[in-house]
Structures are given as C-alpha cells and as structure tokens.
C-alpha cells in the first residue's frame, strides 16, 4: 500500500512534465495557469544542456564560411588570379555555410532555438588577423588550421553528448553523420595540398610550379 502511495506520488510529479496533462488542464472547465501547454514541445534527452554548444558551433561554421569566402575572392582578383584556389575556398565556404544551416535545423528539430549571438567557443590565435589576403602557401595553412579547429570542436561536442548523464545518442549520431567524417576528409585533403605545395616551393623560382598546382586544384573541384 505504501509502495502504491509512493508510486502514485511519483507518477503525479512526473506527469506534471507531460504534454497530455497540460492538454487535460487546458481542456478542463477551469484551466490553471492560463491553460498553457508548455510541455508539448520536441525536447528530450540532453538538448537543453547541449544547445549552447551547438549554437556556438553553428556560429563557428558561419564565421569560417565568411573567412573562406574572403580568401576565395582574394584569389579571384586579377593580381592573384588563381582559379583553383578561388574554387577550393569557395567550395569550403559553401560547405561550412551548408553545415551551419543544417545544424540550425537539427537544433530546432530537437525543440531548441538558435541564438546567433552565442559566440564560437574557440579563440582565434593571436596571429590571426582579419586580413585574409594571404599567399597561396599561407592560405593553405590557414585553411587547414580552420578546418582542424572545426573538427576538434565537433569531437568535443560528440564527447559531451556521449558522456552526459542522459547520454544523448541522437546528438552524438548527428555530429558523427554530418560533421566528423566530412571534416576529417577536408583536413586530410588540405594537409595533403599543404605538403605537396610546400615541396614545390623549394625551387628557386616557384612561379610555374604554383601555376601548375593551381591548375591541378581546379581539376580536383
């Protein structure tokens, strides 16, 4: 009997968080607290604690996307005139932008909100000025660092989602599916380009090597 009592009390406190009880209240003849149905939302798991991290990650992707866009337009001008680099950075910019939009949709799918004022978590290094008119080699290095930073942040969020008390496998899976794999590929590609390109620069005059590498880059897009 005592057990039943405790059980029903438990049931009562828990049922306070259900959409059904909100609806029952709202549909009753005398609804309490304005008949709000606050529990009729899409939230469950650890989305409320992970939301801020995800929001920051969206903004990190948006910031990275704009940086790549600036790098792309720089290589598109007549003085740099490197169509391959221009295309590569435009592709990376579009990827990060699409990733940001998709992640926003995921946050809202889980009943969360997007906050564009939630700043990216990682600090840019001191050397990172806003000037993105870089040489070909420096731009590859910067691009590699940026993608690595995103990849590391994806791993951190994945780790948080997995080790949270109410392990949110859905967030972890989403990050794996949409971020970790694609980011590791981007990191690998950029690391490869950096090393190949570095070897070409040891020549006395690398002008033609850079031209050929740019042409190669254009073909890989």
């Amino acid at each position, binding site marked *: 009997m005592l057990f039943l009592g405790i059980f029903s009390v438990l049931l009562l406190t828990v049922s306070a968080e259900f959409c059904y009880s909100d609806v029952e209240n709202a549909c009753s003849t005398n609804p309490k607290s304005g008949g709000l149905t606050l529990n009729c939302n899409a939230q469950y798991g650890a989305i409320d604690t992970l939301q801020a991290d995800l929001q920051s990650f969206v903004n990190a992707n948006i910031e990275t996307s704009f940086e790549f866009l600036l790098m792309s337009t720089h290589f598109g001008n007549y003085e740099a005139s490197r169509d391959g680099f221009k295309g590569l950075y435009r592709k990376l910019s579009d990827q990060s932008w699409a990733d940001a939009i998709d992640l926003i949709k995921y946050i809202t799918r889980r009943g969360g909100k997007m*906050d564009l004022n939630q700043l990216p978590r990682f600090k840019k290094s001191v050397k990172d000025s806003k000037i993105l008119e870089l040489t070909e080699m420096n731009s590859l290095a910067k691009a590699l660092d940026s993608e690595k930073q995103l990849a590391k942040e994806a791993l951190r969020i994945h780790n948080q989602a997995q080790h949270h008390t109410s392990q949110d496998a859905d967030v972890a899976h989403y990050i794996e599916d949409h971020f970790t794999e694609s980011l590791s590929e981007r990191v690998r590609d950029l690391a490869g380009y950096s090393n190949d390109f570095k070897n070409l620069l040891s020549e006395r005059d690398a002008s033609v090597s850079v031209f050929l590498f740019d042409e190669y880059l254009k073909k890989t897009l």
Partner: protein
Amino acid sequence: MKLFCVFLVALACVGGTMGNGLKCTLNPANVPTSWIDIVDPCVKVMESQVKTEIAAAMKYLAMILNNNDTNIRQEWLSAEEALSDALKLEAEVTRSIRNIIITCENPKETETSSFNDYHLVDYLITDFLEEQHKGQRDLAGKLSTLGKMMQTHGQLGEFLFDKKLLNGEI
C-alpha cells in the same frame, strides 16, 4: 671531436642551401593599371553595400529561426509581422542600391568626378533593381493575401497560408 666538426660543417652546408626557407611570396607580375577605371567614391559605396547585403542575409537567417536577441531581432510573433519586416528590409536594400547608382553615375569628392561608370550602373539597374522590385512585389502580394486571409479567420488563415506557401501555391 673530428667527427663532430665534420658534422657541424655538413650541417652548415645544408643550412646554407636549405636555410633560406620556402619561397612563399612570388614576385608580382607587371600589369598596367590604366584599365582600372572604377573610382574611389563608387568603390566605397559598393563596399558598404556588401555589408548591407550580408547584414540582410543574417537577418533573414534569424527570421527562419525565430529567436530572442541582443543586437539583431531574432523573434517574430506572427507570419504577418515577419513578412512586413522583410518588405521593409528589402525597401532599405533598394534605397541603398539607388544611392550606389547615383554615386557611380556622378561621383564627387575626387578629381575624376566626371567619371560615369555606365556599365556598373547598367548592371545595378538590370540585375539588382530588377530583382529588388520583383522581390518587393512578391512580398507585398503575399502580405496582402495573408492579411486578408487572417481578417476573419485568424489562426486558420495563417495555417492555410503557411501550407500553401510551402507547396508553392501562393
């Protein structure tokens, strides 16, 4: 000791040939600049237009999300309010494009003040103003339809409008 000295000399030689680092900066080519005829005041307004367009893009992104804010509005109470805000935003962009046209047609403040950038002006009118006017008419039409649908049917009107919009039926 002898071996060590040889090693040091060898290292110095390697350092001598490799120590210059990579040639990361190429010498710029010699391109004449006489063909670059775009003038400063015109470039400046174009730059500020890029900022306006990016700000508008971010504002639309915020509209999709419908959220609270500190420096940009991230929450709208109804579809009508959001559409009406969008129309105002487009009107602002249009006004700003008009100002670029005026500046680039007859730039002041420089010696080259008489330079009329016909091609840029034509591009802004044909591509940008065309898109602005089409977009504004579209938004105004949608807002008008929604407003009428909601006059007597409120929420049902908005729900129906939303589903029609999703299917491209409005």
